[in-house]
């Protein structure tokens, strides 16, 4: 089996419009969550989110492109440009024929849906723009990445709610690991901060009105974010031969299904995925120094996740660090695992652990070292990234420091 390394990373999210700015914000424990700036926000009960600020699509794309690119596709392309540019790869000939793109996404072009539903239902019009379908389809982002960068190998979109990106990156890992592709572009994106998107989440009554405070006893729910995280996964020998800079090694992953409840998480399912990822990566519990938690800030997730980590790690659970960067960038739903993988790369490569901000009161049911409020320097050899989706679908990735 082939070793898989990361040779490019890109992002746009509430903390920054590229990787260096996002790392800086994570190091400083900055909060990207603020008042939502969207139409009809006055009719929403939830008025905050991790929105990308200071972003003008016309600075990045021309009119024809914008007619076809929903906001989630725009975010994806911006992050893909950064990641692929960092990797130094150009796709042509045999490489192009085998390299592909697998992305995670949950809501598709929800802004496009929202706007066009307004057109036909609210404004009573009987005609919509001809590109509504190619704009809103969940695979639009993956397809546009394939077209912009000439990726002609295996390409598809994975949709498993909050675990979409982790499942997508697991597929990309497997394709490179098994030798089917020398390079895969992967990650995910989401943009559902529109009236309908937020209203739908409001319905579940799991959203916080003021802040995301994962693992803190006074937590009161999750906060939505938006953006994208994109990575270049490359076969190690391929990367070495061309002298590429290696950000980290993807060592393994595991998936599991709770087969239990459509919204409530299960300790068992989560623990099985965590243990499976360590086994796949051939690392011991004691090798793991950092976990980027799913850490949504809901009552149910945080205590279940803490119990699962305690179960999977035994005594070592008290020695490792686990933080939730959702406290800073919000929950990017189908794109969240991708942006959160950045925190794992920062831990492994730079030795900086992103904090869980807004942490105010210890919760005995979440009694782990959650790196409260302030980033920490530490040498980490192995990091895990957790994602536990609605519907009980879990995916955990294991990364190693590249030496």
């Amino acid at each position, binding site marked *: 089996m082939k070793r898989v390394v990361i040779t490019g990373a890109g992002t746009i999210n509430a903390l920054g419009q590229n990787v260096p700015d996002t790392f800086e914000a994570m190091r400083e424990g900055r909060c990207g969550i603020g008042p939502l700036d969207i139409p009809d926000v006055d009719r929403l009960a939830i008025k905050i989110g991790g929105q990308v600020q200071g972003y003008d699509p016309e600075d990045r794309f021309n009119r024809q492109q914008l007619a076809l690119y929903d906001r989630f596709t725009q975010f994806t392309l911006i992050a893909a440009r950064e990641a692929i540019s960092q990797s130094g790869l150009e796709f042509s000939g045999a490489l192009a024929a085998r390299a592909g793109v697998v992305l995670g996404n949950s809501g598709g072009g929800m802004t496009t849906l929202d706007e066009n539903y307004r057109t036909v239902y609210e404004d009573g019009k009987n*005609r919509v723009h*001809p590109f509504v379908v190619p704009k809103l389809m969940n695979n639009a982002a993956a397809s546009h990445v394939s077209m912009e960068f000439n990726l002609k190998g295996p390409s598809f979109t994975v949709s498993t709610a909050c675990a979409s990106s982790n499942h997508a990156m697991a597929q990309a890992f497997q394709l490179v690991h098994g030798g089917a592709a020398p390079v895969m572009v992967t990650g995910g994106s989401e943009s559902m901060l529109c009236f309908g998107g937020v209203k739908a989440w409001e319905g579940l009554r799991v959203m916080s009105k003021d802040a995301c405070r994962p693992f803190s006893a006074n937590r009161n729910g999750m906060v939505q974010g938006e953006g994208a995280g994109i990575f270049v996964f490359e076969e190690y020998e391929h990367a070495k031969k061309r002298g590429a800079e290696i950000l980290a090694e993807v060592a393994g992953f595991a998936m599991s299904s709770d087969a239990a409840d459509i919204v409530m998480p299960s300790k068992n399912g989560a623990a099985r995925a965590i243990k499976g990822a360590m086994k796949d990566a051939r690392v011991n519990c004691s090798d793991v120094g950092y976990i980027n938690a799913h850490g949504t800030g809901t009552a149910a997730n945080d205590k279940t996740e803490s119990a699962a980590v305690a179960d999977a790690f035994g005594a070592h659970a008290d020695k490792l660090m686990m933080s939730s960067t959702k406290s800073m960038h919000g929950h990017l739903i189908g794109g969240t695992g991708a942006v959160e993988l950045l925190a794992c790369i920062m831990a492994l490569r730079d030795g900086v652990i992103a904090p869980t901000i807004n942490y105010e009161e210890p919760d005995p049911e979440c009694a782990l070292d959650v790196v409260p409020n302030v980033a920490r320097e530490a040498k980490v050899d192995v990091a895990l990234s957790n994602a536990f989706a609605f519907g009980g679908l879990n995916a955990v990735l294991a990364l190693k420091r590249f030496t």
Partner: protein
Amino acid sequence: MDTSVDSIKTRVIEIIAEQAVLEPSDVTLESTLEDLGIDSLGLVESIFAIEEAFDISIPFNANAPQESDFDITSVASILKGIERLVAEQHG
């Protein structure tokens, strides 16, 4: 809405030129969509823009353009079709 023949012509040429990323002066009555570099997606987008501009419904099926009761051979034929539809639907 001004539905004089001249005004329809000016507006339609503006829409087609915008789609082709050209100046309106570069679009002649004899031009075909192919000459102007407008592909099938560009065509349906132009038809949408024309429908919006004149509040008309254009009977165009992208699966069978030649069977649609709307001739897209050239700018002139498109204009003729639009003039007829405006007269029928707003006459």
